[in-house]
């Protein structure tokens, strides 16, 4: 056990270095974007986007005939974006409410993606494609150039979020007001959607489409318990994400049969549960304690 730990954390093996760095970076960057998704109350949209990039990825694979990362990002972006546009269209032009529209689009896109994936696997590409890891993720599939591409995207994500921090914050709090100030609200909205899709795309190799939404939402939701300051929440969320990425990569290193994505999600869910109960101030234990104190205080005054 000790030896495994030392091997892992010495990062002497370049593969481990890639995997660990890649997992931490992608988990942190999606956790940062996730803060704004959570504050905008659009968590379900995040889930829909992460599921609906699958057909785009498969289409890119079929088109290129091999795993071409830039093309896959384009494919994922197109189908993720199409899903959002369709959800919007359905909500606006029919009696179907948003939650139903999200469920419909999510399942249609994901179903289509699975059909395409099955087709690809049964047509001889399967062995070298590595596409099956896109469902549940496999951080070990992060190799050399891919890691560099994903890292660049992750860094770009973080830089854009920092650059538009005040606009994203205002839009999450009061979008109509942002519009009255003359801010380019629809373009900023498109930018945030693009960031969401990019975060999903970077995460997909390691985490997989099924659970990617958890890496967007869970660290952000957990971080909300620890602070009332959005800047701190973003930093905390990034740390939670990075830690989950590290934990997921470590576990799948120890037991190579273990998928990385689900373990990352387990790690970040543990953090979320802990935050829910034990965060000072907002956690339920703290709330319960304060309520109890208040009641004893009242009783003392009355009695």
């Amino acid at each position, binding site marked *: 056990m000790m030896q495994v730990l030392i091997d892992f954390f010495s990062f002497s093996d370049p593969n481990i270095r890639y995997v660990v760095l890649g997992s931490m970076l992608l988990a942190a960057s999606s956790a940062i974007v996730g803060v704004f998704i959570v504050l905008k109350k659009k968590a379900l949209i995040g889930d829909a986007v992460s599921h609906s990039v699958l057909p785009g990825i498969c289409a890119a694979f079929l088109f290129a005939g091999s795993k071409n990362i830039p093309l896959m990002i384009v494919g994922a972006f197109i189908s993720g974006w199409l899903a959002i546009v369709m959800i919007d269209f359905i909500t606006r032009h029919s009696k179907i409410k948003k939650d139903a529209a999200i469920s419909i689009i999510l399942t249609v896109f994901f179903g289509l993606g699975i059909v395409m994936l099955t087709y690809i696997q049964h047509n001889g590409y399967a062995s070298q494609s590595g596409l099956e890891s896109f469902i549940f993720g496999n951080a070990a599939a992060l190799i050399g150039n891919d890691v560099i591409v994903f890292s660049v995207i992750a860094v770009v994500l973080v830089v854009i979020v920092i650059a538009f921090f005040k606009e994203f914050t*205002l839009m999450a*709090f009061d979008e109509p*007001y942002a519009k*009255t100030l003359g*801010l380019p609200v629809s373009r900023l909205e498109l930018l945030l959607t693009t960031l969401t899709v990019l975060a999903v795309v970077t995460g997909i190799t390691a985490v997989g489409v099924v659970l990617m939404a958890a890496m967007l939402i869970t660290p952000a939701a957990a971080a909300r318990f620890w602070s*009332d300051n959005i800047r701190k929440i973003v930093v905390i969320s990034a740390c939670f994400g990075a830690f989950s990425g590290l934990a997921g990569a470590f576990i799948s290193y120890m037991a190579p049969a273990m998928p990385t994505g689900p373990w990352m999600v387990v790690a970040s869910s543990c953090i979320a549960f802990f935050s829910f109960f034990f965060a000072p101030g907002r956690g339920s234990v703290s709330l319960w304690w304060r309520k109890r104190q208040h009641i004893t205080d009242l009783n003392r005054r009355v009695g």
Partner: protein
Amino acid sequence: MNENNVLKVNSLTVGYTWKPVLWEIDFEIPQGKIVGVVGPNGAGKSTLLKSVMGVVPVTNGSVGIFGQPLDEVRKRVSYVPQRESVDWDFPASVFDVVMMGRYGRLGLLSRPRKADKEVVLDCLEKVGMADFAKRQISQLSGGQQQRVFIARALAQQADLYLLDEPFAGVDAATEETIIRLLRKMSEENKTLVVVHHDLQSVKKYFDWVIMLNVDLVAYGPTETVFTEENIKKTYGGKLTFLSDDGNMIADLYTIQEK
């Protein structure tokens, strides 16, 4: 500048679907007045402000502000939405929210400077919230939330202010603070358009009044326009529905005199 040109609305029609929310509205507002917008629920009062601010798409007609289209004069117009329109559990301090009023002037990618911070503190001072700058917005009372929203609008340093129900659900002290502030602003030649639903205080608060019920019923100086006949026309069926003997209006006036 033409004195009657602060806000000019020309046959403005707004419809969310097929049913119009506002129908062929025409009016002009002179500078330096406090203008009340009154009408029953669903009369389109909030929609009127939102369509002037470009938040709600206009089906037909036009809006001129200081004789120009909105995009030319954004920095001179400021909007205070209804307090309930946002989630006050948002992770921000009072200072952060008021600073949002500076974002239009700051522009994309630039950070607030010292001068912006001074403006923000000054605006908090004006609404009597200077001691609350660092307070979490989730810990504010309704009246304090309203003052924060008004401070945010003040931070825009505009000339025309549109306020959506600033007196709704606030305590007497806040109402007093707000109305005193509005009067002071109008003395400085700022123009204020205020959606209001308490008929009893209309005469006390507003120089002018716009009476609205999808159609424009009347607009002009309060003493000439805010008559029993126009109130009946604006609230019409709804008030008689509430009172058997049809004396609701008379009742309102007796309450006011007390």
